[in-house]
């Protein structure tokens, strides 16, 4: 067993894990943060996308032990108080989900896209950069609309702060 410690959604956490424990399982089973989903566990579907040190990564192909000392944000950590993150609000408003299985990963990947590109994001870039996230319900159109809408909203919020 290995002792791991990291920051998750602003809180310092630690636990004892086997070397083979995947980060996504540490989040879900040790910390009870089940918003991060496990789809393919081979880095293809993107359902397990989280942020590690500010970058979108797939938690199903990272060992919990490799995450030692990192700063993790999951879908549970992005709303402030009772208010949805602008990306969550945009997915709700534009109906960017149906069954919802891919949604946490979609939202974490989309926030990362907006963080890197800001409001001059275009549709082609959104579609290209969401290639690592698979949705089997929506056909992506409303997801892309939501991300483009949130790109404007997120910029406004940063400017207001």
């Amino acid at each position, binding site marked *: 067993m*290995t002792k791991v410690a990291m920051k998750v959604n602003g809180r310092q956490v630690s636990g004892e894990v*086997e*070397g*083979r*424990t*995947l980060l996504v*399982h540490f989040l879900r089973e040790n910390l009870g943060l089940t918003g991060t989903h496990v789809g393919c*566990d*081979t*880095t293809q579907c*993107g359902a397990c*996308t989280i942020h*590690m040190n500010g*970058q*979108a*990564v*797939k938690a*199903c*192909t*990272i*060992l919990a*032990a*490799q995450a*030692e000392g990192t700063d993790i944000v999951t879908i549970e950590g992005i709303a402030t108080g009772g208010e949805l993150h602008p990306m969550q609000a945009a997915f709700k408003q534009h109906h960017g989900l149906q069954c919802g299985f891919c949604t946490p990963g979609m939202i974490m*990947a989309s926030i*990362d*896209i907006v963080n890197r590109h800001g409001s001059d994001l275009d549709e082609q870039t959104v579609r*290209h*950069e969401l*290639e*690592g996230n698979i949705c089997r319900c929506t056909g992506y159109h409303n997801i892309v609309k939501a991300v483009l809408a949130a790109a404007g909203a997120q910029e406004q919020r940063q400017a207001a702060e």
Partner: protein
Amino acid sequence: MKPAAFDYLQAATLDEALDALHEAGGDARVIAGGQSLVPMLNMRLARPAVLVDIMRIEALQKIERSGGDILIGAGVRQAKLEAWPDLVDRLPLVAMALPWLGHVQTRARGTVCGSLAHADPSAELPLSLIALRGSVHLRTKRKKRTVSAEDFFLGMMATDLAEGEMIEAVSFPARADGTGYGFNEIGRRHGDFAITAVAAVMTEHSASIAIAGVDDRPRRFDVPLPGNSGLDDALNEIAWDLNARDDIHASARYRRELVRRLGRRTIEEAAACLA
């Protein structure tokens, strides 16, 4: 638990990593970004007894010029190379190939050298290294050696890495004046494994192409210049020379046709980039 059990060791120094690899012999694997290895572990296609994590070793984190080469350490992630300000100027072919490699999320974790060690026959970085005639720097506890890309890739997911040995760095020859480059790929979806990928390198007097996804390893061939009427014949010979096979993604015949068409297009793009 997805993977079979293993001991995980986070090495703080290169010596510590090499000692661990030496002691474990053939039962140890290096883990860097883990974007190829962890899926293999999750599917239990790989069952190492020991994993040696090299990502906290400061000495492996460098991208630097070394003579006419760009030396990239085993700890350098693909996203870091993608963001390297000199990439387009010094390694234009790699700059063309990187966006094809996996996804934003996997490039944030995966390393350049890890992709070489994995040696998938359709992978873009091994293809680029073959096209540019680069080399791989290997090291055990006792000795260092440098192997050319041609000698490093032995077959499907097979390399010249010996027991207890790890990649320390890779050398990509930097862009020479008067050289043009082209890169193209066809896959089922962007970010998937390539059905066929082609890299071309051209000067005023010579042209070569390298092809991934067809044979069991990336291979490079000299070809006539694009203005020469012999180019199509040469590409056809290459298409038949490569050991193309049918699989779930495409037929051997389709792959041969991609070698001909994508080959010509990529060489023409390299020529345009030269002009």
